[in-house]
């Protein structure tokens, strides 16, 4: 038998949720008020709880978050038998993937696969096609001398889409980690175009073999 009758309606089953508690049992209204004050309504994805990259957070299971801002990491092909500057690897920067004040950090390591006694240069370029022909030199890293087995370096590319410009420390120079704007050069960068960052190797002995061990591009916004 229900407790707390009011005007013939049991307050603990009151369908209108309008009746107050009595001294014996809490009313439906009181229970509702308590729940509203202490518990969150059912979550609705995209409404009361945000999504991550359009993925709902509701339900069980795991969502893997890729915290790596990498645009791409590549391993290059071996270069041998030529003294020409040769593409070992490249990374596509897709059209419309760059926003205002993006920084691209480029890391490159070239290795001597075989051969000794001669220098190996490694540079990186940018082009709207995946080709060195017509490419713009963006960075020259310290070359591998005859005794070096690898060489690596890093550059930051600052992109200002409001003026369609990319700036990089003077492209023909090896650098330290600190520099000022007078050491940088600026080239046109149209974010609506595809661009390729091309990692290149130049041998000074056709019998040697070298390649880009890794080329990595991180994007910071």
């Amino acid at each position, binding site marked *: 038998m229900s407790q707390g009758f009011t005007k013939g309606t049991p307050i603990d089953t009151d369908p209108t949720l309008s009746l107050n508690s009595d001294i014996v049992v809490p009313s439906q209204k009181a229970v509702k008020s308590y729940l509203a004050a202490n518990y969150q309504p059912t979550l609705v994805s995209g409404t009361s709880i945000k999504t991550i990259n359009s993925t709902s957070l509701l339900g069980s299971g795991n969502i893997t978050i890729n915290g790596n801002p990498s645009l791409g990491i590549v391993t290059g092909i071996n270069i041998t038998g030529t*003294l020409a500057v040769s593409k070992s690897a490249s990374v596509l920067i897709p059209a419309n993937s760059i926003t205002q004040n993006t920084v691209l950090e480029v890391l490159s390591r070239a290795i001597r696969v075989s051969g000794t006694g001669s220098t190996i240069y490694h540079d990186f370029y940018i082009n709207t096609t995946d080709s060195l*022909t017509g490419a713009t030199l963006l960075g020259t890293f310290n070359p591998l001398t005859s005794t070096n087995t690898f060489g690596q370096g890093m550059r930051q590319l600052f992109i200002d889409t409001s003026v369609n410009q990319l700036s990089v420390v003077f492209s023909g120079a090896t650098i330290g980690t600190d520099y000022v704007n007078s050491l940088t050069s600026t080239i*046109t960068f149209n974010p609506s175009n595809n661009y390729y960052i091309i990692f290149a190797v130049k041998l000074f002995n056709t019998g040697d073999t070298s390649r880009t061990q890794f080329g990595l591009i991180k994007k910071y916004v």
Partner: protein
Amino acid sequence: MYNITKIDGGFILNDTEYMFDEFRTHNSISETQAHVYTTNSIILLDLSCTIESTSFTDINSFLTNLYI
């Protein structure tokens, strides 16, 4: 294959205009390639490019023609 169009003080490649630096600096980096210094960048050109639709087999001749 790209065709280079010469203009006064520079060239056009792939719809982009480049102006030579004041010293017309260039480096032959292999028998078929050169770095050509422009006012704000260094461009890699090679013998796969034609200049005004003319092909070249020697990088020095290519560069000489480019700067004439």
